[in-house]
């Protein structure tokens, strides 16, 4: 009895302390970044090209590299992921094949991302001859976010009421019509919300792309799939490695740019989700 009461009083405090510690840790990181980087924020940081002069160096190739690589990843992963999710949840609900695929996908989601980079470089880059290019980076990232997209899509598809499907079937709809006209439109907002999260995951990913592109000096934005590239996290990382104090501050400014980008995408996803929940509650 006494032990139970003691626990009742102690446990919440332990938890609260743990929470506070992690919040304080995060907050001090953010403050440190803001303190170091805010002074270096300038239009040139976004517009400028890389340079050995920290006052002129900018993120332009890295931003465009991120857009290319992540864009390609989404272009591949979104249709593939949604199609997989539709197949798994609408066409083979009970099949052993779908269970096997789902099991493998959820396991894939737990593989460290650097492994994707290694496999991507050796298979796509060397074996298929795509080199350390946008193509290799984008395809590798697409496989990294594919499980995420499949899982969020399946969740969105599952939330489509069964009675809507039955209502359509009862009017003489075929299965493809039910999927195209009921399931997909109703699941689409949820799929998009999840996809934004996938984009922001891909944007922030550094390890697999570090393996693929290395820390090369990229002079300009890519102009084709076979061009070399750098991305935001890598450019930031390469600045951190420089000995000059200014570059360290510049990298903090780059982190701010990246954070603002990621946070706004995540907020967009949250806003979208809330809007959808309200609509559904009507």
């Amino acid at each position, binding site marked *: 009895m006494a032990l139970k009461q003691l626990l009742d009083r102690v446990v919440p405090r332990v938890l609260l302390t743990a929470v506070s510690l992690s919040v304080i840790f995060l907050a001090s990181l953010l403050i440190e970044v803001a303190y170091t980087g805010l002074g270096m924020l300038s239009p040139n940081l976004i517009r400028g090209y890389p340079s050995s002069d920290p006052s002129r160096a900018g993120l332009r190739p890295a931003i465009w590299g991120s857009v290319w690589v992540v864009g390609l990843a989404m272009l591949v992963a979104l249709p593939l992921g949604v199609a997989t999710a539709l197949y798994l949840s609408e066409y083979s*609900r009970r099949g052993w094949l779908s269970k096997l695929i789902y099991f493998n996908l959820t396991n894939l989601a737990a593989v460290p991302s650097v492994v994707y980079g290694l496999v991507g470089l050796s298979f796509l880059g060397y074996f298929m001859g795509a080199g350390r290019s946008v193509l290799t980076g984008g395809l590798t990232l697409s496989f990294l976010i594919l499980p995420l997209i499949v899982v969020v899509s399946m969740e969105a598809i599952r939330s489509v009421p069964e009675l809507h499907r*039955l*209502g359509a*079937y009862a009017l*003489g709809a075929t299965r493809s019509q039910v999927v195209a*006209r009921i399931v997909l439109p*109703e699941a689409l907002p949820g799929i998009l919300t999840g996809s934004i999260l996938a984009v922001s995951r891909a944007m922030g990913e550094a390890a697999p792309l570090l393996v693929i592109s290395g820390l090369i000096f990229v002079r300009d934005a890519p102009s084709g799939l076979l061009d070399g590239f750098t991305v935001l996290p890598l450019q930031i990382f390469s600045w951190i490695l420089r000995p000059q104090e200014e570059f360290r501050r510049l990298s903090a400014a780059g982190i701010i740019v990246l954070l603002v980008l990621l946070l706004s995408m995540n907020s967009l996803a949250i806003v979208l989700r809330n809007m959808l929940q309200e609509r559904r509650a009507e």
Partner: protein
Amino acid sequence: MVGGPYIIETLGLSVSYDGRYAVRNISMRFPRNSITAIIGPSGCGKSTLLRSLNRMNDLIPGARVEGRVLFKGVDIYGDGVDPVDVRRRIGMVFQKPNPFPMSIYDNVAFGLRINGIKDDLDRRVRRALEQAALWDEVKDRLRENAYKLSGGQQQRLCIARALAVEPEVLLLDEPAASLDPVATAKIEELLTTLKQDYTIIIVTHNMQQAARIADQTAVLMPDETGAGTLVEYGPTRQIFTNPRSRRTEDYIRGRIG
């Protein structure tokens, strides 16, 4: 007329889910242009029987149908019969109103569009809404989301949606179960007008409702294994005033109280 005065006829119909029978050996005939009510205690297989009349059971994994269901003399479970075609000709309305999350107009036009009907859409939508006694209430708000309608209006919209594809039979599974008495009365009145053009088969747990609107009534009761069997079927008046079996009498009396 193919099939004579009976549009649907079941012959030794049994339905099982994963080997467990929900209804067993049901043979009955449904006359055209009339309302047939199916009553019976909860879980005795009324919905199962109804779903087997337009092959909606095909969508349930593990469901198996034995026996025959003749629609205008043709076995709808026979080789070469497309369940999609069966469902277009034998419409269904569910217990809970289930409008699609789209406009009132698009809800009614849905069945037409998926069946490739493109011309005269406006006229067909209007006719269906008129038949469902909903036109006057929605004619100025056809582009509004269907969820803005009240529960009773939503259910009549679902009836309009089913009627738009011009089925010959309309199956309704406790269509008023979630509605208030006023909305229920509207649906009942609607069904009695609709029987001039359609054959109506309605499952209901509401005895008075069956007594009010049905021309004939079927009573399902579970057998020893729990599978529903047809224990009584005849003109509604006879079922309610002079049932053949003691069990039916007790059941009806208990429900009317």
